[in-house]
């Protein structure tokens, strides 16, 4: 099973190394990791997507909790949360294919953010499925380069994480 964890950490040097080091030495797989400052500049938020059964999840969360710089950990179940990742895709494009590509981008609500003589750069935001789908569609034109962010996630509705630390 895949779990999305929202982890609040102290915004201090070395915290990312503590967290990623823990995952690697205990043999847990990180599928995606994104980190950034929260509304409180002293606190950063990591969104970590991990693969594993409930036992692994319990181990991951209890080991993570032991890190002094980890403030809180919340599991965001897919049904109660929204998550997004972003990808930039550089695709081969000439006058013959440009219109087709722009039409595909439109359907995915992706943006064209650069046009060159032989390429287009497309920015697409969405969950994993959507990003994979547009990649598949663009594949036949020739994808030159893809860069992806880690996924970020929030609870739906009024619920937030780490309320007491804000």
């Amino acid at each position, binding site marked *: 099973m895949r779990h999305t964890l929202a982890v609040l950490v*102290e915004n201090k040097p070395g915290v990312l190394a503590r967290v990623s080091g823990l995952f690697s030495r205990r043999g847990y797989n990180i599928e995606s990791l994104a980190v950034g400052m929260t509304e409180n500049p002293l606190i950063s938020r990591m969104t970590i997507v991990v693969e594993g059964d409930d*036992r692994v999840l319990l181990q991951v969360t209890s080991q993570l909790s032991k890190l*002094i710089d980890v403030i809180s950990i919340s599991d965001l179940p897919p049904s109660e949360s929204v998550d997004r990742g972003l990808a930039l895709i550089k695709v081969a494009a000439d006058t013959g294919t440009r219109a087709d590509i722009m039409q595909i981008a439109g359907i995915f609500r992706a943006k064209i953010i650069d046009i060159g003589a032989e390429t287009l750069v497309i920015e697409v935001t969405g969950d994993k499925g959507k990003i994979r789908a547009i990649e598949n569609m663009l594949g036949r034109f020739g994808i030159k380069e893809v860069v992806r962010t880690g996924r970020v996630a929030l609870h739906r509705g009024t619920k937030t994480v780490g309320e007491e630390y804000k």
Partner: protein
Amino acid sequence: MTDTPISGAKALINCLKNEGVDTIFGYPGGVLLPLYDELYDSDINHILVRHEQAGAHAADGYARATGKVGVCLATSGPGATNLVTGIANAYMDSVPIVAITGQVPTPMIGNDAFQEADITGITLPITKHNYLVRDVNDLPWVVKEAFYIASTGRPGPVLIDLPKDITTDEFEFTYPKNTYLRGYHPDVGIDEDAVKRAAAMILDSECPVIYAGGGAIISDSSSELLRLAETIQAPVTTTLLGIGAFPQSNPLSLRMLGMHGTKYANYAVQESDLLIAIGARFDDRVTGKIDAFAPCAKVIHIDTDPAEIGKNVRVDLPIIGDAKTILQSLNSHLQKMQTMSGAWLGKIDAWKKEHPLSYVQSDEVIKPQYVIQEIYKACPDAIIVTEVGQNQMWAAQYFQFENPRTFITSGGLGTMGYGFPAAIGAKVGCPDRTVIDIAGDGSFQMTSQELATASKSKIKVIVAILNNSYLGMVRQWQELFFSERYSYTDISQSVDFVKLAEAYNLIGIRAEKPSEVPSAISEALSADRTVIIDFVIDPMENVFPMVPAGAAINEILEPGAVA
């Protein structure tokens, strides 16, 4: 407290005094010069070790013997990296130490400066937490937090890396009264409902066994443990690190379980219907083949570290928190309980009679087990420290431990060379106690340079070398599992330990016959300085009982067995 600016070095000493530190085990170096200059005038007792690894082990032995935080100090680069084994050792056994390392000045960090090592990076996986101090104003709260983190919850080593310029920068020093750590809450309180359920499970059980680990000692739960065992009439086995948590003279004691545990402890665990684990972590040296461990038992797991729950075995009822508080509450629910039926204890007594620990005594050659028994006879209230290997197991098996903090050993990491410096640390922490390092001839050579520390700083310990001329524990496995092919484990005739002691102006005694054992011990006890006793023992003696690695803990090898 002062308003006139003082240097970071002076401030550090003030911080340490505020934390009640009386002793530091350290070794100087370039970046530590300003700090050592302050130490020169300070009333903190600095013990100059002869290798930083020994400094960490001494701080560890001091901590285990006293229950206080041990402190070690090393310079940047090689000094810091020399601490690594000692820090890892303390981490594995949850020992509260604070390791302070010098670092190159902050502007040079990251430039591969002379004697720079990224010690916070290196020790990330072997410390409970670590700090690189980048601003002298941070120093007081860093030290405050370091001691708090090291000593609370599940204790462990904390490292403070101190760049040289931080020690000379001046600032207005005040020591904080409290720590504020958003992400660290060691005293969570206990779940009373879980405690009640535990009481009910105990009431339901017919064959309970209490399995106590190092956590029972760290949490100072011995009297609560004794009361629990006596109230419910449950036998108690301990891990290697749990030795001393429960008096081995008590009829309910099963002594140690696991790979070299007693047969009756292992049998009792395997047939139990309820296992009450207290501050123990189901290590593979305890459980053997995990799927076959305590197959009929429900498991109650009392531990301060939630990450230990369910890590190795399925747990029916976890109770998180301080073991002492939990046991006090549990005992209050059990007060009026009737005692268990005698059938279970009867069965255990039969196992004890049938399978006592045993060895074949000899008139010709010294048996190591006999040496341990004689040491016990001569000095039953000694603090026993061990090296690693057969010596460690014989000490665990043949001494009789009655009190916590009297058996000090490297369990989780199994660090050869731990014992002697840890014994020095224990002696410094408990100067009125007799401290004896039960040593192997191999292990002792890993930190024997500390004879200089013992000599110069006048610290008296007894090093009882069970000299079998082998890396004995490895040789035993070679005998049993590798067709007696003794590949690189013969260390005979390489050192004269008596002369070695004398070279350091200490005392060396050799005992070659069983009849010489008691007098060697009494001579060592009455000596005015550190003594090495070189007990020349039967080189082929093995540690039994033995559960081969990966076997179920009731699949026990006997003397003479070849797998």
